[in-house]
């Protein structure tokens, strides 16, 4: 039996790695998640056969927990709109972190129970010093990821908007961290279950405190970091439970997630350190609002339609605003019409378009846009000077030329799409506001830029009607 269980775990680990590898290419990605799913089912099923598990009631609880937790997640996952995907991922990730923390809690409580029976017994004696340390570190990381992810979810979902909870947040966090470490060390030779509870309560609070100041635009980086942390916590608890599948899968996710976090942070011109410990936009207030020259010019949808119909190439730059307006289906219909007219149409995606890197690709894919019409920033930027019309829909900061030209801009240094270099730029906007970062956009005041005011979906429908009449 032991042999079969171990072999199944081994196979599951292989399937996870192969699955993840396949998920890193659009051609094989679908197969990748299927293989990983097979691995997960296999690992879960053989765990029921583990001879060290006991208690009929415990088995009942297991089945019940899987049914309720899995059923809830299945229902949620099936129905969540694609626009809300980032917070859903944060929520599911938080659950994983919480599970890792809870596993450590059970292990510690059992150890305290056994230490009680031995005169002078301690947690480190029962578990072994190495296992005790790993269990505590894993508990710490997993629990931070749990409460941090919940805050990330609540923030992205618009349920929680505060940026600080207590004055001098960073110092409070530091004090809390020191206290947590102190209690963690204390736990080694304690027999008090209350101390375990206190440890977890304080770590939960720390996760909340660390995540609360993170701004909305930085949240994807934080979520990705928590994803990596959950992976690491799972790997560590795998060591505690002597489970190779958990060690391998957890560690693979931990390192892959760390790399993914770095890539995201780099695409946003932010460091992970800054995301967690710095405020954003503080220099924006000191920037001189008068430096932007020129005025905004308005255009009507009919003129825009004519301009695009006779263009040689149109590049569409979609942003989160388009997704919120649910305009992606209409925009794709518009593209198909333009292609019938013989216009080349391409989509330009900034690495952080949407709420998360790659989120916009998902939203366009949902609307039926083939992925070979969608171009990365590096591929599309040399194309803009050859483009007749750049149509910017609901994007703002990611096309701001100040990020390249103006050293005083808070966006300076962030890689941007060079839509400003197109022959004509048409910006579809709901109103005269600034972008997510609150920074003024020099593109709107350019000579070759015209603004088309209105809701993304309504504008797209109007453009379609005018094109059909031509």
């Amino acid at each position, binding site marked *: 039996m032991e042999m079969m269980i171990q072999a199944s775990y081994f196979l*599951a680990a292989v399937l996870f790695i192969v699955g*993840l590898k396949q*998920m*890193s290419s*659009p*051609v*094989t*990605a*679908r197969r*990748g*998640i299927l293989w*990983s*799913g097979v691995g*997960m089912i296999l*690992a*879960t099923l053989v*765990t*029921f056969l583990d001879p060290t598990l*006991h208690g009929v*009631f*415990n088995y009942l*609880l297991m089945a019940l*927990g*899987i049914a309720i*937790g899995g*059923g809830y*997640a299945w229902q949620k*996952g099936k129905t969540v709109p694609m626009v809300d995907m980032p917070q859903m991922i944060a*929520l*599911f*990730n938080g*659950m*994983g972190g*919480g*599970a*890792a923390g809870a596993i450590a809690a*059970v292990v510690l*409580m*059992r150890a305290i*129970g056994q230490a009680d029976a031995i005169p002078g017994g301690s947690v480190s004696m029962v578990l072994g010093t190495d296992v005790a340390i790993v269990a505590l570190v894993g508990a710490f990381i997993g629990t931070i990821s749990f409460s941090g992810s919940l805050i990330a979810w609540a923030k992205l979902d618009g349920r929680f908007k505060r940026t600080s909870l207590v004055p001098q947040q960073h110092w409070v966090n530091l004090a809390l961290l020191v206290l947590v470490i102190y209690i963690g060390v204390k736990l080694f030779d304690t027999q008090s279950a209350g101390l375990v509870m206190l440890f977890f309560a304080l770590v939960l609070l720390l996760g909340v405190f660390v995540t609360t100041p993170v701004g909305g635009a930085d949240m994807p980086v934080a979520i990705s970091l928590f*994803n990596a942390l959950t*992976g690491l916590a*799972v*790997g560590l608890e795998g060591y505690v*439970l002597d489970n*190779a599948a958990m060690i391998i899968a*957890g560690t*693979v*996710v*931990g*390192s*892959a*997630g760390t*790399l993914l976090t770095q*890539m*995201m942070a780099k695409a946003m011109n932010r460091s992970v350190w800054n995301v967690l410990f710095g405020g954003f936009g503080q220099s924006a207030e000191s920037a001189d609002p008068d430096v932007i020259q020129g005025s905004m010019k308005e255009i009507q949808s009919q003129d825009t339609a004519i301009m695009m119909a006779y263009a040689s190439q149109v590049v569409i730059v979609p942003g989160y605003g388009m997704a919120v307006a649910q305009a992606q289906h209409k925009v794709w219909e518009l593209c198909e019409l333009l292609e019938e007219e013989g216009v080349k149409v391409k989509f330009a995606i900034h690495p952080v378009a949407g709420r998360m890197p*790659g989120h916009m*690709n998902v939203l366009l894919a949902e609307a039926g846009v*083939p992925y*070979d019409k969608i171009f990365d920033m590096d591929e599309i930027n040399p194309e803009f000077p050859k483009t007749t019309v750049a149509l910017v829909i609901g994007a703002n900061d990611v096309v701001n030329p100040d990020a390249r030209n103006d050293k005083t801009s808070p966006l300076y240094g962030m890689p941007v799409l060079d839509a400003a270099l197109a022959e004509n730029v048409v910006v579809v906007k709901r109103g005269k506001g600034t972008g997510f970062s609150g920074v003024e956009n020099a593109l709107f005041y350019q000579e070759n830029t015209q603004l088309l005011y209105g809701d993304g979906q309504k504008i797209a429908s109007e453009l379609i009607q005018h094109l059909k009449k031509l």
Partner: protein
Amino acid sequence: MIEGWAAIYIFLLAGFTGYEVISRVPVILHTPLMSGSNFIHGIVLVGAMVALGHAETFTQQVVGFIAVLLAAGNAVGGYVVTERMLEMFKSSKGGKG
């Protein structure tokens, strides 16, 4: 069974594996991949089941049950949303990814 140094080697090699597997991924797959890796750490379910199966007191059962509940949510939810996202990727040549 997995002793100190062997565990450290496993951590090391698994770490490199994760890094290598992800290192050349296009931006368009960042969100699905994050979601996919989110699903893979759902393997914590196995650990949660073991923790619950070892529970001896009522408190341990409660905490173990919470672990299973959360872990199942992670695994199932992670799979469903990843699958939904990847299902939509297709090329204009009609081939499904």
